[in-house]
């Protein structure tokens, strides 16, 4: 569910990052006031734990494996506010230090996996355990929380993808980012999550929680009980508002493109909507469709090609010069 860069428009990324700022600020405040100061390092170590959770390959039927996100587990263990910070930091490390998940899309990834998932999961877990006090009820609560929260987060990610063709189009109607509408992105994202990933998440969450409860019951009963009721409104509001926020910058994008509509029609029409687009699509001249773009001297195209060609050659030779075992180790 880690969205890479260029799948979402910068406007979407900006809106979702802006939505995360108050959540992060509130999380920090809540963690400071509700969690004992001595637990501060636990946030960092919780983030490390959250990062490592995604490294476990969980067995699936038939010998294949999958990995869990773990946000609901961490929310159940440390509370939703601490989980929000821990998962955010884990996502940040993945994006910046491991190149996994986009940097511009960091806000969007946090929104899905560090906000929607832990808070919704914790809400479901609390809602059930507050009403039914038994071991079975607690297990059921975790199953429901992990399954629903993961799938809901996937749905939100699908909506983010599916809105892209609506809000960010080139002036000639071509998609600039994720090209699939909601009718494609929602089933494509939710079906695998409903059928496989949801169960991976459930097995992991319930299994680890049950283990910790059995081995060290004190830790779970000592867990601080964050007051969550007041923020239901905020969460529901933000979730409802987020698609609106995504749509709002869309008009600005449309206007921006419309200014240049003349340019597009003259310059780009032959490259655009041709049914035999495949022929043009994968030939190199796509990137250099017209050396004489207004204001760019013709020679720059050649300079660029030369520089690119030289760089590619150097890279190839450096790779060839690499000792064989080194390439393997770097994996």
């Amino acid at each position, binding site marked *: 569910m880690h969205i890479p860069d260029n799948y979402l428009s*910068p406007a979407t990324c900006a809106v979702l990052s802006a939505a995360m700022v108050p959540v992060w600020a509130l999380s920090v405040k809540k963690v400071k006031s509700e969690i004992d100061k001595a637990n501060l390092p*636990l946030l960092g170590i919780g983030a*490390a734990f959250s990062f490592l959770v995604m490294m476990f390959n969980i067995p699936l039927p038939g010998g294949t494996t999958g990995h869990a996100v773990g946000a609901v587990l961490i929310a159940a263990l440390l509370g939703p506010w601490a989980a929000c910070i821990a998962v955010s930091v884990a996502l940040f490390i993945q*994006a910046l230090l491991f190149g996994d998940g986009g*940097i511009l899309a960091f806000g969007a990834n946090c929104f899905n996996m560090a906000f929607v998932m832990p808070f919704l999961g914790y809400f479901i877990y609390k809602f059930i355990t507050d009403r039914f006090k038994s071991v079975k009820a607690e297990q059921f609560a975790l199953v429901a929380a992990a399954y629903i929260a993961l799938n809901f987060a996937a749905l939100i990610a699908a909506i983010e993808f599916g809105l892209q063709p609506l809000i960010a189009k080139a002036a000639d109607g071509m998609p600039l980012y994720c*090209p699939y509408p909601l009718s494609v992105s929602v089933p494509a994202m939710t079906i695998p999550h409903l059928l496989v990933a949801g169960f991976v998440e459930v097995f992991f969450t319930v299994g680890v929680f049950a283990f910790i409860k059995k081995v060290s019951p004190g830790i779970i009963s000592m867990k601080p009980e964050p007051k969550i009721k007041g923020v239901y409104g905020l969460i529901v509001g933000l979730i409802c508002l987020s698609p609106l926020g995504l749509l709002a910058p869309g008009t600005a994008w449309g206007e921006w493109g419309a200014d240049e509509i003349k340019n597009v029609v003259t310059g780009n029409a032959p490259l655009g909507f041709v049914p035999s687009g495949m022929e043009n699509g994968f030939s190199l001249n796509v990137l250099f469709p017209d050396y004489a773009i207004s204001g760019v001297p013709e020679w720059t195209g050649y300079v660029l090609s030369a520089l690119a060609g030289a760089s590619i050659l150097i890279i190839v030779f450096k790779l060839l*010069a690499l000792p064989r075992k080194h390439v393997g180790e770097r994996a």
Partner: protein
Amino acid sequence: MDSGVPLWLLADEAYAPRRDKDAFIDRSILSFLSLLSRARARGGKETGKAGTDAFFKIVAVFLLLLLISLSRNRFFIATAGTAVLAVLASQRGEYLAAVLKTSAAVALFTSLILLPSALSGTAVPAFIIVVKVIISVSAVKLVSVSTEWSSVSGALRRLRIPNLFILVFDIALKYVALLGEFALSMLYALRLRSVGRNADKHAALSGIAGTLFLKSKEMAEEMYAAMECRGFSGEYLSSKRLRFGFREAALTAGMLVLVCIFVYLPGT
């Protein structure tokens, strides 16, 4: 005739453990191993030999991603791609291998995802999206493999990121390596004991992850005590001075040129 060896020891052993699909242990071990090799290579003390200052690299890569993502001009995308290629060409072979491996995987994945869209008549935009993704991923991956982890928190401090976040980030980075080692030893233990059929694989894995959590809780308490003993007040100061040499100047100049090209070119 009595050799002193008990008879049961002389009988042929005919024990063949039943085969089991437990690839999840090996795969988990592999993920942890690759993580730890990264942590050892990048996560140690700052050597000062890591090339360009992390602050410049992070700002530049962020700007580059933003420009690429915003740009609708193919010429700009070609320029940015060439710039990234040129920077890549100046790097060490080990970095290149890591970067190209990731960008090849991401390119393949993105192409597969966009294939239906490309076949339905939007091949050109789909191709541009793939190119954008490759450039962005290569740039980020290059920063990620060429930056020492400890220099990132200093860079974040300069970017005015709140103290609490940097503290959490810093602790997380150190403990990713520590807890990773711990998890790896448990996985090795599980691997050694995995003979025959394991009826409850999830229990085995839950045990490891659960123990990992308990261990991390314990480490957090010890760490807080140690921090308090040393008079930690919660403030994070970057004592290192900003390095501004040839590499930093070249990177700044290159980014300025890219921004100028981006502004200068029409937005189509």
